[in-house]
């Protein structure tokens, strides 16, 4: 066990005028060979800044290391010249990033991109390089390296891309790998595989890994040691089991508690009357070219569902499973190719836009991205009253209701006159909920409504949603990729894959004994099952 990376009292300054002076402050940490160190924290905790300062990739116009040392291979990375630093990069320390799609050059064959590293640091001939590249691709367990090497990033799946990144990073067998949220953008099943891969490569090559993440599930899966950061400072660190089971710092505790359990709580079965029924919904995307039809995508294939007042139906699935398509069809934001959507036994799927307007207020939706869900140029109030006033509610009344709703979602009524950019993500999501409720809907669709939020915030918004469901006897359709979240909020769930329904049933039953293979994989892939004993019932 030798120390590869040794950061001492590192402080990085923020540009003046920010809410705080330092992005990270007096951070000290070490990474030894053969160990994976996880740095956990929520957005703004400074975990990424730490990682980037090691690589010397900080945007110098904004962020500048002002104090401390970063020792790697007995050099202080903060003081050495650019040439030496460039040499170390890729050779001694390399990095993989959150978004493999954008992290790879879209106009370069992946093989060449991997080879580039060799080109920079070795004198190998192009044939030798090619051989090494194929080897590297094999090492990251990619099928058919030859054809993969000559393909472009956009032709690969997210998992494959991340493997490419890893191959690229590890081709020179660096002593230290820095992984910045490498699985956050991936589907849960893929995530499991990538995590496994990283762990395997790490142990086989005896590297040290500095692993940045926000997800305690992931931590539980992969970490040897854990470092928890908050507001640019390290609040607690320790061996993984120890830290997960007996967190000392309240913030650590808060984060761990915020991780939703995989075990669905006991729920009463709603027999309330049916609010909405969708029968055999089918959505086909097809580019019909000038000559014949282009390729056709079946985004959703005869999906039927019923939704009772006061119950929450979850649709879970990975990206591309078609769960959002179903939601948007029901919203009539897109028109289903076939199938009917019944509200009070009126088929709104058949209605023309003009007729549809009358039914709009009955279904409302909350979107994933809190930053794009509100018109930045209109005050929160305007956004909330817009709907009711469309349906002829008097301004005074609408604003009165808006105030009440703000209280309901836990914001002050004064906020109505403010603009979205003055709120945080969580607050915006609350506002969106208020906007939805303002319509007095019978059905509420939450499309990945909490996916973009930090765990702690996530928990609060989830509670809020559950409360309003009960308070207003809403029928809620909850779209998510996150099985933990689904477990907590859904009465019944439907599992989707590639536009088709895989399995449906009460949440408890499905989680307890999944019938379908895919469902089992999905559940198995959920990170951190083993190491959260108290959370796996």
């Amino acid at each position: 066990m030798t120390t590869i990376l040794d950061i001492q009292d590192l402080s990085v300054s923020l540009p003046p005028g920010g809410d705080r002076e330092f992005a990270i402050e007096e951070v000290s940490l070490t990474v030894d060979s053969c160990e994976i160190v996880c740095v956990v924290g929520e957005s703004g905790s400074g975990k990424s800044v730490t990682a980037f300062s090691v690589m010397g990739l900080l945007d110098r116009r904004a962020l500048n290391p002002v104090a401390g040392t970063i020792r790697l291979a007995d050099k202080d990375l903060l003081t050495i010249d650019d040439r030496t630093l460039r040499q170390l990069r890729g050779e001694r320390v390399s990095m993989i990033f959150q978004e493999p799609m954008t992290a790879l050059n879209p106009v370069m064959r992946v093989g060449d991109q991997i080879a580039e590293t060799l080109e920079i640091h070795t004198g190998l001939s192009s044939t030798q390089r090619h051989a090494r590249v194929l080897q590297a691709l094999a090492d990251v367990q990619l099928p058919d390296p030859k054809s993969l090497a000559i393909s472009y990033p956009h032709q690969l799946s997210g998992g494959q891309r991340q493997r490419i990144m890893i191959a690229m990073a590890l081709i020179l067998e660096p002593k230290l790998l820095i992984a910045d949220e490498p699985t956050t953008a991936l589907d849960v099943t893929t995530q499991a595989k990538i995590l496994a891969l990283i762990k395997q490569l790490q142990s086989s090559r005896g590297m040290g890994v500095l692993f940045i993440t926000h997800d305690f599930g992931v931590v539980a899966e992969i970490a040897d040691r854990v470092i928890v950061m908050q507001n640019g400072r390290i609040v607690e660190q320790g061996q993984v089991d120890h830290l997960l089971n007996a967190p000392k710092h309240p913030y650590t505790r808060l984060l761990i508690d915020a991780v939703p359990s995989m075990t669905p709580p006991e729920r009463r079965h709603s027999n309330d009357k049916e609010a909405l029924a969708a029968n055999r919904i089918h959505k086909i995307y097809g580019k019909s070219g000038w000559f014949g039809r282009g390729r056709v995508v079946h985004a959703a294939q005869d999906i039927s569902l019923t939704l009772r007042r006061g119950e929450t139906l979850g649709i879970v699935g990975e990206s591309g499973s078609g769960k959002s398509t179903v939601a948007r069809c029901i919203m009539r934001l897109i028109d289903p190719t076939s199938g009917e959507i019944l509200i009070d036994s009126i088929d709104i799927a058949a209605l023309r836009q003009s007729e549809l307007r009358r039914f709009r207020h009955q279904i409302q939706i909350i979107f994933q991205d809190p930053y794009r869900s509100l018109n930045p140029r209109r005050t929160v109030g305007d956004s909330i009253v817009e709907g009711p006033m469309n349906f002829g509610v008097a301004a005074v009344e609408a604003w009165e209701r808006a105030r009440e709703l703000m209280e309901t979602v836990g914001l002050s009524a004064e906020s109505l006159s403010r603009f979205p950019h003055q709120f945080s993500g969580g607050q915006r999501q609350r506002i969106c909920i208020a906007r939805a409720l303002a319509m007095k809907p019978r059905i509420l669709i939450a499309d990945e409504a909490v996916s973009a939020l930090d765990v702690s915030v996530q928990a609060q918004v989830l509670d809020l949603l559950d409360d309003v469901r009960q308070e207003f006897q809403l029928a809620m359709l909850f779209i998510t990729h996150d099985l933990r979240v689904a477990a907590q909020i859904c009465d019944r769930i439907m599992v989707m894959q590639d536009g088709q329904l895989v399995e449906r049933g009460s949440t408890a039953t499905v989680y307890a004994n999944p019938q379908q293979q895919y469902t089992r994989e999905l559940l198995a892939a959920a990170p951190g099952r083993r190491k959260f004993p108290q959370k796996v019932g």
Partner: protein
Amino acid sequence: MLNYIAVRILSTVPVMGIVALFVFILLRLAPGDPAAVIAGDYATAEDVERIRQQLGLTDPLLIQFFRWLGDILQGDLGTSIFSNKPVTVLIAQRLEPTLLLALTTIIFSILVAVPLGTIAAYRSGSAIDRLAMLFSVGGFSIPVFVLGYILIYVFSMQLKLLPVQGYKSPFTEGIGPFLSHIALPTLTLSVIFIALISRMTRASVTEVLEEDYIRTARAKGQSELRILLRHALRNAAVPIVTVIGIGIALLIGGVVVTESVFNIPGLGRLVLDAVLARDYPIIQGLILFFSFVYIFVNLIIDLCYTLLDPRIKY
């Protein structure tokens, strides 16, 4: 891909049609009367009427239009009212100078503008950047003909380095005379084009430099120069090429002025003379021709996208 090319080519047909119609209407609604011009000072009203009939200007507009359209489809752009020569021949006579002037300008501009814009983007906010952008804005601010005069005055009259005017064909008079005669016009015409391209290059490269894969390249230990050449420029290419395509229109416009200033017997001069002389067939033919060139060039450029960016599939 082939499918796409076919579609793309077909899609230009309605555009051409619209251009044709537009041009035709434009000319027919104009008050100027070629017959009167031809008839000359001593002509009586009868003479004018007579000539008007011979030119077929008395037929109903619709008939005139379709007659004209039919001819075009057979590759006949009509015959000049004055010189009595087929418009296609007139265009052929004038094509070479304009074509070569355009080419030299495009090449020269790209050679100057792309590095300029890239440096400006890389050192954004620096003195070089400021200077480059000042130049590019300046390029948009000086009337072409003033620039032309100044260049003539300095290089030809004072320094006596280059000829004042005229055009020498590289095919018949050798490359030397060609270059010495084309130099000043190219310089004149390039300024605005350089401005255009360097602006776009800067904007595009700046954007690309923000991308994650640039960061990845750095993480590999790649040198900044290589990063610019191999990663940044390659990805910034599409908008740059696009603006060059759109710039063709600008170029053709500039050619009209430059050719009169430097007395180059090209298409720009031809169109100007034709307009002032009300030589309808030439005006129609030329505007159509230019539009065709523009559309064609941009078609080619569209197809180039696939080479520049593998993500673009047709």
